[in-house]
């Protein structure tokens, strides 16, 4: 079979399926990034808390999810989630094995890991806010919520942007592990295509190339976002606003 037919969009081509699978990879990574942002913010808050217990819990979370192989987290979420779903099914009168939808399992697993990394990013970003700004906000009478919304969040997001970019790249690559749950994302589709055509080399190269394309594109996007955000940073001595 010629390369054109193999990777084309015709009835025997895998081109369309691979592109759709790449979109699925992006979708699962986006869902994971959002979940990870929520978890990461909570864990960062716990690690910055004045209460010892919260700090310990936050530290335990980041240690565990950065110290255990991503593959194991995917397995535990997928099988553990499926056991839970089966049990709920049994209570409702159903029987047999019910699987956790693989998209959900993948997004949760990658999201939980990304949450551990994002927590560190947010914590670092929070610590780089100048104390004086918080004091100033207090001095002019801003309450906790208002101060958080107007002073803390905008700055944390700016400082955290490069870190979030790194976590996104990490999650994009971790999402390949979700293939073990059978979700038709890029890794899985490359495997299926390779297996059914016996052209392993070509399809893994093609899959890898699509991953490279995605990482390059997202690098561009984050780079543009960073330079946009950089306009609002304080400059050094002699710095003039443009």
């Amino acid at each position, binding site marked *: 079979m010629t390369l054109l037919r193999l990777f084309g969009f015709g009835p025997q081509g895998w081109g369309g399926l691979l592109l759709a699978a790449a979109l699925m990879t992006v979708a699962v990574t986006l869902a994971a990034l959002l979940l990870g942002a929520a978890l990461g913010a909570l864990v960062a808050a716990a690690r910055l808390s004045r209460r010892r217990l919260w700090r310990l819990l936050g530290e335990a979370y980041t*240690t565990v999810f950065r*110290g*255990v192989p991503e*593959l*194991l987290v995917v397995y535990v979420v997928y*099988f553990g989630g499926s056991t839970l779903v089966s049990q709920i099914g049994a209570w409702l009168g159903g029987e047999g094995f019910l699987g956790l939808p693989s998209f959900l399992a993948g997004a949760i697993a990658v999201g939980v890991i990304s949450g551990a990394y994002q927590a560190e990013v947010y914590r670092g970003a929070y610590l780089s806010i100048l104390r004086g700004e918080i004091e100033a906000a207090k001095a002019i009478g801003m309450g906790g919520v208002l101060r958080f919304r107007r002073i803390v969040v905008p700055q944390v997001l700016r400082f955290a942007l490069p870190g979030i970019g790194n976590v996104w790249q990490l999650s994009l690559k971790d999402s390949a592990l979700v293939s073990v749950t059978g979700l038709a994302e890029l*890794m899985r589709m*490359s495997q299926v295509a390779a297996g059914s055509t016996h052209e*392993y080399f070509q399809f893994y190269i093609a899959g890898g190339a699509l991953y490279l394309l995605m990482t390059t594109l997202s690098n561009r996007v984050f780079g543009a976002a960073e330079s946009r955000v950089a306009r609002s940073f304080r400059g050094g001595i002699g710095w003039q606003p443009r």
Partner: protein
Amino acid sequence: MIDAGFLLGTMRQLLAAVPTTLALFALSVSIGAVIAGLLAWARVGGHPLLDRFARGYIFVFRGSPLLIQMFLIYYGLSQFPAVRHSPAWLVLREPFNCAVISLALCTGGYAAEIFRGGLQAVPHTAIEAARASGMSGLLLFRRIIAPLAARAALPAYSTELVLMVKSTALASLVTVWEVTGVAQRIITHTYRTMEVFLCAAAIYLVLNVALVRLLMLLEWRLSPDLRAPRPLPAA
């Protein structure tokens, strides 16, 4: 609910696979460090062609998932009869070797950038001072550049080493019987998914915590200049 006998038996079987995991780690990290050293050299050496090659290598191996690299080497290369009939097949037919090669190639890309950062963190003044006192070439590298660069690169390299311990789990997907692979084998016999995976997770956690402690100790040993001086004995 908790079956202590089963957990104990599982733990014993999983611990028996720890040497395989450690072997994957040690071999791939050593080979990867050599690759990374060469790539970092190419990046800072100033030769445009070598620099471009190193950039390309780093881009490819850092930009795509390790799993697809591993599958490419294990399933992809064996597709070609030319590979199967070459002497390289003696190495490539073993899944363990394929796992080591792909882990090493991948960490080579990541560590190259870390090493380059370390090399560039060596202050020019230190090199000038060494040259002024007559050092050059290998002596300059061994006495001045290498120690300073290693100290600067160590924190980032520690993170990379922890990532590598975790990455060895992917070898289970190319049928290497390391900790994760053995965990899966136990599960296909017992169907007790959660207990087995949690035992495996605990093993990796202990390995990584031990590794981080060791590296922190090393970092402390290597930075006497950053420690507070010992208090002088009271006069």
